[in-house]
């Protein structure tokens, strides 16, 4: 009984840690982008100032019920997905509320928030929002397929749908899954490029083209909710990658190093790339990532 209280308390702390770490990573990405562009750039805590300012603005916007609920959907999704991902392995506080079959649950819940946001953005009546939503859903069709194939390959190969089991397998074998099932890792990393929506896959927000897309009618507290949910979601996804492919983390420092190393991939790729058009992005995901997904499935079926 006591272990459940540990888990719940750990889960609450996890959400706070995810918020802080996610915002810091976004701030660091702004700083690194600025340094690559030969600028000084904002301080790494700039996103916290932005969040504080957005939270203290008024939000006198009303377009209908779903518009208010859309950002809440995003927040719920982020918190639910961060709660089922084990943050630290072998720790009674931060193993979190995972259960058998949480990989399948995650596959479903990660799509839930964007769909809710799409409903909310549709109700604002802003044409930019509508275009952003259609682009986002098309892009999701693109990157979800290699991502699901990578996860299914892992599930087939190790005959489990639990993240904790996968971590235990890596610890028993002494080899990270990124080496023992490399094709799944490649497919998952290529899918992650679309998941994080940095350029060249920033076709949803598309600054200067779509005026920030689905969130174009959201200001003040709505934008704060979206910003914090994005940071929590980013942390959840990064931790999931570390758990699946990099053998998990046993303490917080190891976790931060590993997640930041994963985070550098989409960020650095984004700083040197221009934006794709929608059909180019989908064509990209249905090219090499899909090929590596098939290879991963074959690899899993043969070995």
């Amino acid at each position: 009984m006591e272990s459940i209280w540990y888990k719940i308390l750990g889960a609450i702390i996890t959400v706070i840690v995810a918020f802080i770490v996610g915002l810091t990573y976004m701030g660091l990405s702004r700083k690194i982008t600025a340094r690559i562009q030969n600028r000084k750039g904002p301080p790494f805590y700039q996103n916290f100032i932005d969040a504080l300012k957005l939270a203290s603005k008024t939000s006198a916007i009303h377009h209908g019920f779903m518009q208010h609920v859309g950002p809440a959907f995003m927040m719920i999704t982020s918190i639910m997905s961060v709660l089922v991902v084990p943050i630290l392995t072998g720790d009674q506080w931060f193993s979190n509320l995972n259960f058998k079959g949480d990989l399948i649950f995650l596959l479903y819940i990660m799509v839930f928030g964007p769909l809710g946001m799409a409903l909310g953005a549709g109700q604002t009546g802003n044409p930019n929002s509508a275009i952003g939503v259609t682009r986002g859903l098309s892009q999701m069709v693109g990157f979800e397929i290699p991502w699901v194939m990578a996860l299914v390959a892992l599930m087939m190969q190790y005959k489990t749908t639990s993240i904790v089991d996968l971590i235990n397998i890596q610890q028993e074998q002494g080899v990270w899954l990124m080496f023992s099932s490399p094709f799944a890792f490649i497919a998952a990393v290529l899918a992650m490029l679309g998941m994080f929506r940095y350029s060249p896959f920033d076709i949803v927000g598309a600054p200067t083209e779509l005026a920030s897309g689905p969130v174009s009618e959201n200001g003040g507290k709505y934008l704060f909710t979206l910003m914090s949910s994005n940071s929590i979601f980013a942390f959840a996804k990064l931790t999931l990658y570390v758990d699946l492919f990099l053998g998990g983390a046993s303490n917080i420092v190891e976790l931060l190093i590993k997640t930041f190393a994963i985070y550098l991939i989409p960020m650095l790729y984004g700083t040197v790339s221009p934006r794709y058009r929608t059909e180019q992005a989908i064509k990209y995901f249905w090219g090499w990532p899909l090929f590596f997904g098939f290879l991963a499935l074959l690899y899993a079926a043969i070995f």
Partner: protein
Amino acid sequence: MINDKNSQKIVDIIQNWSRKHSIWVLAYGTGCGAIEIPPTMTSRYDAERLGVRGAATPRQADVLLITGYLTTKTLKRVIRVYEQMQDPKYVIGFGSCTINGGMYYDSYNTIKVLDKYLPVDVYINGCMPRPEAVLAGFGKLQQLIAEGKANGATKYKENLEWYKGNQKKIIPNWVMPEYNW
């Protein structure tokens, strides 16, 4: 405790500090001054290090940057944009044209004094102001925000009838909704 004057003062200081260091600008490129915005934002002058950043839509913006002259036709759009912005909001008048008409002082279809139609917090002088001047203008706005003196929006609400009267005098076919705060 909640309506206590001293605790409100502390909250104001924290909020003003965050507003000061995070200015999201909606650059309304009405006139030729808009050409000075890209160098201000990019590598050479890098306004982002001061927390100044472009916002995509009026809903997300804090500062409306009126870059140069305003024709009566664009004034209508600017008013709509300004009224869509969320409090606290500020207006920067950019270039001589917003102060006294500048080189368009005798034009038949541009407005001469922006302050009659929208409450301007900071003027940036020059035709056109260089990026250094723009950064100095942002610095002045930051100083006003920190002191709590950048209250153009409250001025607009208090003198709404005067502003609306001036706007309706110059815009002949007024089809916009009426607001009352």
